[in-house]
């Protein structure tokens, strides 16, 4: 009962339900794309990365080759490597735990964890979201693959709307101050502009590159100026997740 008082556990459980239920959609679409039940389950159990899984079945459904499907899924999985770096630095799992945490390193578990400032909450958030989504995602993949068309379109239940809301909910607490808002707006714009021109999933990587460039320009300008002299610095450190921002005055030490 005490665990339910933890904000990270509550966010983790909410996002597990919101995301896990969407496994129905994956299961149903996968079998109609031409994969069999066990191939569908293999993707959810072993690949376990929604974007990559949808990319794989999307290519197969479009008549693409197996190697193209694998390529698309692999390209989309790249961002999980970035998440892995972040989670490793935050939680520093040891031994076999490291291999387990790598497997449940996805958008939602990383976002739940990095949204917390307290190290214990970061850990709770990561494992609640990671294991919760893993369990529900696989359960509902099976339901979708078995029941398929009988369930109807998951969109009619608003599950895609739930995903939108969940990501906005994870982003929201970070938008304290001018600089994070500017970064979010620029990355969102870059994504929208990239969508029509590159394969699905790549727009997210484009946004990652834009963010890195923005951060790099940020520290170069900080490096040149003296402490407290920066013209466009926001005093948002107090509201911000500890890992997400360092006040420039702290960097000069």
């Amino acid at each position: 009962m005490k665990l339910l008082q933890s904000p990270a556990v509550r966010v983790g459980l909410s996002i597990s339900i919101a995301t896990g239920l969407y496994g129905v959609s994956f299961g149903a679409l996968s079998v109609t794309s031409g994969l069999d039940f066990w191939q569908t389950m293999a993707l959810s159990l072993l690949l376990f990365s929604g974007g990559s899984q949808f990319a794989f079945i999307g290519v197969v459904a479009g008549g693409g080759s197996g190697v193209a499907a694998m390529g698309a899924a692999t390209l989309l999985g790249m961002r999980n490597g970035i998440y892995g770096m972040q989670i490793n630095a935050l939680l520093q799992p040891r031994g076999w735990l490291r291999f387990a945490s790598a497997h449940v390193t996805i958008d939602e578990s990383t976002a739940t964890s990095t949204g917390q400032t307290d190290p214990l909450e970061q850990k709770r958030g990561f494992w609640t979201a990671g294991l919760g989504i893993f369990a529900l995602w696989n359960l509902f993949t099976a339901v979708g693959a078995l029941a398929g068309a009988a369930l109807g379109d998951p969109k009619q239940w608003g599950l895609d709307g739930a995903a939108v809301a969940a990501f906005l909910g994870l982003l929201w607490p970070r938008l304290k101050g001018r600089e994070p808002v500017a970064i979010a707006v620029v990355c969102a714009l870059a994504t929208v502009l990239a969508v029509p021109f590159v394969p699905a999933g790549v727009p997210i990587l484009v946004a990652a590159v834009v963010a890195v460039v923005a951060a790099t320009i940020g520290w170069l300008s900080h490096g040149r100026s003296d402490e407290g002299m920066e013209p466009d610095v926001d005093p948002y450190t107090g509201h911000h997740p500890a890992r997400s921002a360092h006040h420039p005055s702290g960097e000069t030490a």
Partner: protein
Amino acid sequence: MNLWLWVLLACLMGYAWKLLGYLVPASLLRNPRMSRVAGTMTIGLLASLTVVNAVASGQSLALDARLGALAAAGIALCFRAPFLVVVLAGAGAAAGLRLLGWS
């Protein structure tokens, strides 16, 4: 049987990416500059994921009931609603708008 090979290879490559991130020394990210980059990237990725889920439909842009979900979630967040309420508001808005006939 051929498709099985690509399914399993995709799974292997997907896990390899995840594990690769864990092999980067943690001390690198504890560097304040690197953690600044990581923090900025988190904001960028979340903004991007929000937008992709709201308006992307494969390789095209679509303005549909998901925009209603985005707006409902934004309103809920302005009123400091708990996370689950935000998610339910998004789902309810999308389902409701579709019931009313807006894709």
